[in-house]
């Protein structure tokens, strides 16, 4: 039987079998950010160790950077302490750091691909669960804890158990107004938030083949929301075209050799999988969440489920969700009033996401009483967006146009929900308190759906609001 990409990459990076039977895996590229790395550097120094392969680690700041102030010291002294720490640590250990003054800073999962650091066939780790994003390029990429960040800094390897691989086919063609975000919210709703435990997800099928790299990143990004440690898509011409000419992508003859290698690392057409699941694009409509985990989703024209009709193991969290969200069973989700709109994050903070939303809100106004934020995922995204005049479209419509960062995705910076506010958000998690207020509420959706929510002040079907037809 032929190998899939996961197995090929795994084999190529296996260093040794460890005493407990797990594998020591070599890590091709290590990305770090300010929240989960300072403790790891501390542990390293405590043991008198150094960074083994500093050229394989790349750093940026994203979680704590304010998106509305540039002057340092920041008004939050803890944020300043964290940015100072990563500056000190990267300087001391000779690590490339995309700092705020480089024009290349941004959310770590946006920076890696746009610099061309993320490439097919690599192993990539970062102390951040959404590292699965990089799988869009055919890399095996997963989030790790801080002690493992320490291990990778010290040895460029880590201990890992091999995952099973589930192939997820999305067949057919997406209807107009249905986006990559809807595809992944649909998959999560069908397979559940822990359906992927122990698996890597390999996404394929016509829908995936036809997606842009940005759409593919949106899908792989949320693999972790389904419990899958990593998700990936086999590299193809779309992947190569995206990478060509990026700063860290191979050049000249090296490029041709790399493409050959990348083509060879893709799963063989007759590759073996531990499980295969098929979805039909015709069944996918704009999808939003109604609950407190990303698997609690429904299509925009559906009603919030009746708890007793759900599988038994989902009932208690559904009850908890209804209570927290203050929603009723059987209530339509369409028309739910919202207070805040957040367009951004490593799920949907790339240029095409902002373009889709800007195109939709062009010439319209954010509804009365709604606070709307458009937050580019990186400084490069910001610059390109501004060159296209998207900032102007957003601000004319009444959005706030911010600087690059994670912003209200998890609200470790000043961008936070207040009290019980409900946010229409393009991010990836709707956990209780996720967006900075312990009682704040999040409804996940695509950028164009968030744009529709912004101009109507409620959860709306973007296809109707913007007359999107085929």
């Amino acid at each position, binding site marked *: 039987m032929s190998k899939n990409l996961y197995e090929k990459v795994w084999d190529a990076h296996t260093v*040794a079998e460890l005493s407990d039977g797990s594998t020591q895996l070599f890590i091709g590229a290590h990305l770090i950010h300010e929240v*989960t790395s300072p403790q790891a550097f501390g542990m390293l120094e405590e043991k008198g160790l150094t960074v083994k392969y500093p050229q394989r680690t790349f750093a940026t700041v994203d979680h704590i950077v304010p998106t509305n102030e540039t002057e340092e010291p920041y008004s939050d002294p803890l*944020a300043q302490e964290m940015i100072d720490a990563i500056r000190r640590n990267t300087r001391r250990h000779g690590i490339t750091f995309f700092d705020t003054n480089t024009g290349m800073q941004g959310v770590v999962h946006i920076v890696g691909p746009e610099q061309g650091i993320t490439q097919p066939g690599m192993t990539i780790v970062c102390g951040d669960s959404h590292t699965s994003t990089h799988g869009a390029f055919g890399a095996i990429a997963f989030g790790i804890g801080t002690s493992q960040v320490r*291990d990778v800094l010290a040895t460029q390897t*880590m201990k890992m*158990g091999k995952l099973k691989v589930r192939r997820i086919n999305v067949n057919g063609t997406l209807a107009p107004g249905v986006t990559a975000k809807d595809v992944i919210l649909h998959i999560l709703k069908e397979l559940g938030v822990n359906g992927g435990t122990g698996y890597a997800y390999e996404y394929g099928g016509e829908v995936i083949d036809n997606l842009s790299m940005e759409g593919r990143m949106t899908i792989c990004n949320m693999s972790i929301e389904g419990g899958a440690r990593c998700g990936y898509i086999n590299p193809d011409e779309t992947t190569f075209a995206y990478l060509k000419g990026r700063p860290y992508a191979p050049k000249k003859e090296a490029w041709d050799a790399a493409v050959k290698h990348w083509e060879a690392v893709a799963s063989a057409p007759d590759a073996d999988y531990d499980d295969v699941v098929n979805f039909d694009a015709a069944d996918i409509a704009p999808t939003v969440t109604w609950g407190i985990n990303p698997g609690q989703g429904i299509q925009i024209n559906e009603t919030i489920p009746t708890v007793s009709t759900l599988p038994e193991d989902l009932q208690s969290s559904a009850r908890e969700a209804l209570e927290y969200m203050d929603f009723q069973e059987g209530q339509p989700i369409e028309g739910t009033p919202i207070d805040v709109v957040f367009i951004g994050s490593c799920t949907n903070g790339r240029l095409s996401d902002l373009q889709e939303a800007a195109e939709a809100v062009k010439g319209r106004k954010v509804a009365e009483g709604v606070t709307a934020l458009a937050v580019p995922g990186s400084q490069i995204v910001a610059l390109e967006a501004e060159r296209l005049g998207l900032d102007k479209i957003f601000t004319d419509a009444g959005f706030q146009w911010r600087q690059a960062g994670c912003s209200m995705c998890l609200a470790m910076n000043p961008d936070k929900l207040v009290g019980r506010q409900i946010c229409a958000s393009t991010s990836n998690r709707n956990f209780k308190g*996720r967006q900075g207020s*312990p009682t704040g509420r999040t409804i996940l959706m695509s950028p164009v759906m968030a744009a529709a929510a912004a101009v109507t002040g409620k959860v709306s079907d973007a296809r109707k609001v913007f007359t999107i037809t085929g």
Partner: protein
Amino acid sequence: MALEKILRRSGKAVPVVGDDIDTDRIIPARFMKCVTFDGLGEYMFYDVRFDPDTGKKTAHNLNDERFKEASIIISGSNFGCGSSREHAPQAIAKAGFVAVIAEGYAEIFFGNSTQLGIPCVNVSHADRLKLSQAVEEDPAQEIIIDLEKMVVRYGAGEVPCAMREANRQALMSGDWDPLQELIDNADKADAVAASLNYI
């Protein structure tokens, strides 16, 4: 460096009711602005322990005097889902907890916990309810997680528990922190690095 061989963990337990307890709940992101893990214990489960509006202590089990001495958490399925933040198991450890008994765990949380020497064992739904009920009725009873026999003992008897074999072995042999072993294989790692055609 030889680490403690973890064959069992024992102590009083506290039921933390619910499924899908995510890491944002275990340690809210706003408490992650720190460059060391030292002070995290205080903020473990902060938003369920303190009423967000009044700031007053809630009626949560973690605030309950009866469970004050607890050092083992009992919870539902998919415990520790969400972000990869090691801040979550670190907060649990810093708050004085030494083990978790639940119906299931998110992958990253489980791995992070093992690496910190915090055994996370699985029990069935029925057994979780049995244990929780027993502990609710008599919070003072000793709970023993026996990794050799893979059982959880409590006042009225015992229930079977499970754990991925590699992690169980790592805990029992004192290899739960793999760093030294990884360092020892440096030559092999260098050979793999040389064989890769990137960076």
